[in-house]
């Protein structure tokens, strides 16, 4: 039985941050991530009639995105034979040092930590989807993008007291939403 409805006009506002965080950890390039998300939305529009409503819109879009990411790696792997590696030292004093030695080594994070952080990030975004639109926007600007209180107040035409009430409500809702698995 079809329970979930599909509405492409709301995809960007509702799911773009989720899709973006899902993609960026897999391709590690903002521009490629943007292209893949764009392709996902267009493929979603084309195959809308196949959406049975059994899964949520987000799950359905992620299943399309997964295929797009796999296609992306297939594409770049097929070009591997033509690849040319160029090594350039950033300054002469470092000449002779391997670039590898200059790369930061994340000894503080294991593969499990990275996976757990990704899962946590997606869980936070899913919880943010439940916030009222304005509350979610203000919370994101303040907490994730690090905007000044004054800048947000000017943009939304609210007082600092209003802002802190909104932040308080958003934080309480998020803490409740995450409580089961992450607290």
């Amino acid at each position, binding site marked *: 039985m079809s329970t979930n409805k599909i509405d*492409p*006009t709301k*995809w*960007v*506002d509702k799911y*773009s*941050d989720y899709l*973006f*965080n899902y993609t*960026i950890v897999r391709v590690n390039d903002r521009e490629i991530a*943007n292209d893949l*998300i*764009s392709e996902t*939305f*267009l493929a979603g*529009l084309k195959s809308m009639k196949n959406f049975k409503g059994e899964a949520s819109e987000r799950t359905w879009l992620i299943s399309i995105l997964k295929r797009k990411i796999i296609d992306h790696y297939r594409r770049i792997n097929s070009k591997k034979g033509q690849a040319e590696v160029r090594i350039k030292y950033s300054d002469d004093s470092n000449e002779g040092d391997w670039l590898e030695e200059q790369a930061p080594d994340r000894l503080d994070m294991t593969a499990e930590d990275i996976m757990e*952080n*990704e899962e*946590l*990030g997606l869980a*936070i*975004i899913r919880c943010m989807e439940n916030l009222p639109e304005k509350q979610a926007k203000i919370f*994101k600007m*303040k*907490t*994730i*993008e690090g905007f000044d*209180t004054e800048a947000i107040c000017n943009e939304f035409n609210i007082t600092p007291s209003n802002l*802190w009430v909104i*932040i*308080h409500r958003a*934080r309480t809702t*998020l*803490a409740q939403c*995450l*409580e089961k698995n*992450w*607290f």
Partner: protein
Amino acid sequence: MSKFKSIFVDCSKAGNCCDKAQYNEASLPEKVKMLVHLALCKPCRKYSNKNTKLTKLIKDCDLKTCTEEEKQAWKEKIKQEIALKDRG
């Protein structure tokens, strides 16, 4: 006596200060008053612990957001595709 009184704040003020502290926007006197309140109020202590944990979780996962321009470009593409579909 009034000076002594002013060090005590109610739960809503302590909660507000706790939120501000998550963004390093609480002043020193506000923090002192909050700490005094937390020492005396168990529910606020619980809220403060959760709030601090939430800040840590958000920081740990290094979330990223899409810019308004990126969102606008996607919306535009979807709009065009829908218009094309309606015509075809």
